[in-house]
């Protein structure tokens, strides 16, 4: 556990080193949610029915931005070899790095999400649900994103490959998250959609460590 804390601290420091990566993701998120109403003609009433879906799509795209660096920079500078010889199995290391990615990027995005959703026309009363669901969804994005980053390790166009691998995997949380908001706006309980969202996160938490570690071992060879 102590070793994982050491790794978390380093990952968080790296996320903020050299230009504040999480702020870039949040800025991209807000830009997307400002651009969509402008592109749609500036009619808030027309946008309102799909505001939740657009907010979740923007959240998913913003979550991809810094994934390329998650393992790639450690592979390039040899740190991945060092990490692999640490006291923690590589599977747990993958999980720890995904959680650090969530803390460094996902949580700031979830904090930004209510602002983005309100900009898109969602009622301000939905803000707590937006933040809560985005917090869960961002964990799912970090986990499946870590898997995509591990699978793309060592490829020449890793960033593009991650997007191609990861975006289809992001469909379920986008559907469940947007569904939760839609149900809440229509006066229904968002709990069923949130339960599916949570189930997705748990599934990703089980699959990502093993598949991600296997992909990393393959890339190290």
């Amino acid at each position, binding site marked *: 556990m102590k070793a994982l804390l*050491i790794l978390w601290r380093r990952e968080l420091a790296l996320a903020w080193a050299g230009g504040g990566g999480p702020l870039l993701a949040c800025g991209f998120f807000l830009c997307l949610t400002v651009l969509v109403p402008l592109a749609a003609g500036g009619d808030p009433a027309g946008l309102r029915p799909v505001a939740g879906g657009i907010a979740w799509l923007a959240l998913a795209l913003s979550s991809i931005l810094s994934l390329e660096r998650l393992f790639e920079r450690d592979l390039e500078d040899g740190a991945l070899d060092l990490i692999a010889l*640490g006291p923690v199995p590589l599977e747990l290391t993958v999980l720890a790095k995904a959680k650090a990615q969530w803390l460094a990027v996902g949580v700031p995005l979830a904090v930004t999400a209510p602002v983005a959703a309100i900009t898109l026309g969602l009622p301000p009363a939905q803000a707590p649900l937006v933040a809560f669901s985005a917090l869960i969804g961002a964990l799912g994005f970090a986990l499946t994103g870590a898997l995509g980053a591990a699978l793309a390790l060592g490829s020449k166009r890793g960033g593009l490959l991650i997007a191609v691998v990861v975006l289809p995997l992001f469909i379920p949380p986008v559907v469940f998250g947007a569904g939760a908001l839609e149900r809440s706006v229509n006066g229904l309980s968002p709990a069923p959609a949130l339960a599916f969202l949570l189930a997705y996160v748990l599934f990703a938490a089980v699959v990502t460590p093993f598949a991600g570690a296997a992909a990393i071992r393959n890339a190290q060879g």
Partner: protein
Amino acid sequence: MLTVAGLTLSRGERVLFRDLSLSLASGEAVALTGANGAGKTSLLRALAGFLRPDAGSIAFADVDPAEARRRHLHWLGHLDGLKGARRARDELDFQCRWLGAAPEGVAAAVDVLALEPLLDLEVRQLSAGQRRRLAFARLIAAPRPIWLLDEPFAPLDARWRAALGLLMQAHIDKGGAILAAVHDPLPVAARAIDIGAGR
């Protein structure tokens, strides 16, 4: 401490070596020699668990290989594993503590490798030799019995080659073992194993 039997290793379609056997005993240094492309680095990476051999076995005396690699093995390859944008102090702290070093071990490594004046600099500001000393610190700070070193002295000047030679000798005297891929002789008494001329 380490026994390799009948190891065959290939990279892609190219077979680097076949049926290689070697052993590394406590208190021993082995210099792994061979031409460029002979497979020295690949052999060390296979021993560290980064490459899967085609055939043969790698055994660590009575310890599960995965556990041995997590607890008993140090790896120092061509790449130092250091982040250029971070301060040397932060990288040193991470590398040493990740491998289980105690604070006093880190302090001792800083002292013996004369790293103190470098610690507040960013890693990218350090020379290749200074970065190598910084990376070497983890071997001193977090004692592990088996050192796998790939061209450990390449970026170092004569003074630091000699100093690191003394540290290697001290490790051997304490019962440790060193397997180093080198082109030049090691600065400690070492058994030489030539793995071939390359292809």
